């Protein structure tokens, strides 16, 4: 197993290289550059800035420089926020986004699984229809609707939660954003869980367990649930990578200083280094979480072996 993990980490290197290369050149294909929007910029100042950041070098040389810096863990300076390096921006924002994302993910997995199981056990009955209705609503109402509604009801009307802001990470400030992030995920997990639980409950070994006179608890939790959990595990990989790297909508609406905003802002401003930094971080998260998922698979299912 260790050998497998090692092998996977090794194959991550060429994967990352391809992602970085594609992102780097695609970014440059887009028209404009980091200093185009600032209208007042005189040509001399602009030329100076571009020279300072090496933007006048041939593209391949810029790429080589960037790779060299990246290998030393240096993401470079941000072009639009010149007071910060990209590394500093992530060091400040990433822990915040990760906290919110992880809380939302855990909430979604727990609540979603329970709801999905309840639905499966009551297939085509009231409990099932209720969960399906909630799940459909949860996955169709967009985040940018849920967030303001939460702000309006819990913040303004009932004054239970702050309307926005990070509040240095106070619990009460996290409730709104975490709920907003979690709701669609709860819906997805519940639906996945319902489907795979229904299938699992129909499987032959569940019939065996019932024929042996085992208790409902054992049949459902020990035998059916463990088999049904695998699709949830697969879902968790990409979901974790997406949630933990922040959400532009939630962070903007709740004024949270996370990293979710960077991707969009940076792309619009042609902040090359910040875009690249975001790409690398998301890629690493995705690779790592997919690896964790595969390892979890082997933990849950003895038939899965890597060697």
């Amino acid at each position, binding site marked *: 197993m260790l050998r497998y993990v090692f092998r996977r980490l090794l194959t991550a290197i060429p994967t990352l290289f391809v992602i970085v290369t594609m992102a780097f050149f695609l970014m440059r294909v887009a028209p404009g550059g980091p200093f185009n929007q600032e209208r007042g910029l005189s040509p001399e100042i602009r030329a100076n800035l571009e020279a300072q950041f090496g933007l006048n070098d041939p593209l391949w040389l810029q790429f080589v420089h960037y790779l060299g810096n990246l290998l030393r863990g240096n993401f470079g300076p941000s072009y639009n926020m010149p007071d910060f390096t990209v590394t500093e921006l992530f060091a400040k924002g990433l822990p915040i986004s990760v906290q919110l994302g992880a809380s939302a993910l855990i909430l979604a997995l727990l609540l979603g699984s329970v709801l999905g199981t309840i639905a499966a056990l009551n297939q085509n009955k009231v409990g099932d229809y209720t969960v399906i209705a909630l799940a459909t609503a949860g996955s169709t109402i967009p985040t940018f609707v849920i967030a303001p509604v939460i702000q309006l009801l819990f913040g303004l009307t009932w004054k239970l939660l702050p309307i926005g802001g990070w509040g240095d990470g106070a619990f009460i400030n996290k409730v709104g954003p975490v709920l907003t992030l979690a709701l669609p995920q709860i819906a997805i997990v519940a639906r996945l869980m319902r489907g795979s639980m229904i299938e699992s409950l129909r499987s032959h070994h569940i019939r065996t367990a019932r024929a042996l006179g085992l208790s409902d608890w054992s049949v459902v939790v020990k035998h059916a649930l463990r088999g049904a959990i695998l699709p949830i595990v697969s879902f968790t990989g990409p979901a974790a990578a997406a949630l933990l790297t922040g959400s532009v909508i939630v962070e903007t609406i709740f004024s949270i200083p996370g990293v979710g905003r960077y991707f969009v802002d940076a792309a619009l401003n042609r902040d090359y280094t910040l875009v690249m930094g975001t790409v690398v971080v998301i890629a690493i998260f995705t690779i790592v979480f997919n690896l964790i998922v595969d390892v979890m698979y082997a933990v849950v299912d003895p*038939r899965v072996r890597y060697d």
Partner: protein
Amino acid sequence: MAASETILSVRDLRVRFRTLDGAVEAVKGINIHINAGETVAVVGESGSGKSQTMMAAMSLLASNGEATGSVDYRGRNLLTLSKSELNKVRGAKISMIFQEPMTSLDPLYSIGNQLIEPIRRHRGLGAAEAHEEALKLLRLVHIPDPERRMKSYPHEMSGGQRQRVMIAMALANDPDILIADEPTTALDVTIQAQILMLLAELQRKLGMAIVFITHDLGIVRRFADRVYVMRQGEVVEEGEAEAIFVNPQHAYTKMLLAAEPTGRKAAPPANAPVLLEGRNVEVTFRIGGGFLAGEPLMLRAVDHISIRLQRNQTIGIVGESGSGKSTLGRALLRLLPSDGLIRFGDRDISTADRQAMRPLRREMQLVFQDPFGSLSPRMTVGQVVTEGLLVHEPNLSGKQRDQRAVEALREVGLDPNARNRYPHEFSGGQRQRIAIARAMILKPKLVVLDEPTSALDRSVQKQIVELLRKLQTDHELSYLFISHDLSVVRAMADYIIVMKQGKIVEEGPTEAIFSNPQHVYTQTLMAAAIDVTRFRLSA
């Protein structure tokens, strides 16, 4: 047998399923009783309700099913017991084993874990004691090296071993009744015989009653004291097993008894042209290996096999699962890469690639075992049947294709109107006819039949065998008939190849093989499949 106490009596049992098309009655008011220690067979074809009867008795019906009537076990009606009361009977007093040994055990828990759970639940033993009990049970069902097996997972065991484990679980609490629902159907014939002998031995030792639910009259003849014959949810005949075999009363029972495929196929003249020839054919599979993963394991599935198929000849390829018989069939059609020489007609196709093979494909067709999986559920029967024409006779108009579909369906004995319907509307036997029509519409010379009758009821098998033989005569077809079912092979093939672990262990004309098998393996196969002596005469 001595008159003994009736321990289970099923009275006026009805089983209904609510479906989208309304209620379907699967069991229509039947009466069955089981006496202590006896062996009862409930016989019938698929859809007869034989399984649902016992599922209802165990409260294992699907959620849209409901049972009425009564199932009395020692004076208590199982149908009205509360769940917790019922769970004291299920797995303890009455236990059950199923047809699907591959999926009936939980794949995520070790054998030991699964064995210990019902022991602890019903007998309230501690972990250590239950562990000892589980070991004892594994020894009882002759699982070698039981200590090690306790830690094994189901996927690490063969089908036969898994069925032994199922039996061990079912016997864990010394039941009064063991219900065996087609316990050997999914197993190879030699393994079938072992499992049946094990059940007979355990019954002698432990004295429980056994209820066999089966379509296999061989099992009934060897085992049962009494028989219930079921058809379409009703018991059409019941009585002592001997009496039913000697003097069946109901027409359906007579039909079942006569359903074994009969007739023999004569060999083609010695000078008939050779259609397909393989010399030293080898197929090797790589398992594992790759980047940092070390050397792959090489598995030789087909090992130096030579075969000569003449026009109008049927070669039966016989062997158990894993013997390489299907792989050989696919390799000879160049559907798998292989080494060695393969000739089709006068062409060497040993190295022909996909493109070179395409024009030849219409002359070599394949019919598969699974009539449910091999037809696309999203195409009408007409589309399924004529799809090959689009490739091989692209000049046909839609009308001409439709005409060909009508002819092909008629030829396989189906109503041509079937072409506007979808495969799921047809029974297994009808679907297999559709699959055959799909092959026949291209007017092939060679058809590889890969277990085409194995998923079908006996009476349907017989019809399909007759259809295939008729098509062969009409079109001078050559068949490669791959099967583990010796009685079907005997009726179909004029030459037999017996395979084991990728090698030919014996070959020769059918009658020679059947009357005088030389190799020990062939003899075992024959004994397991053909021998009808009883394992046990009622005590």
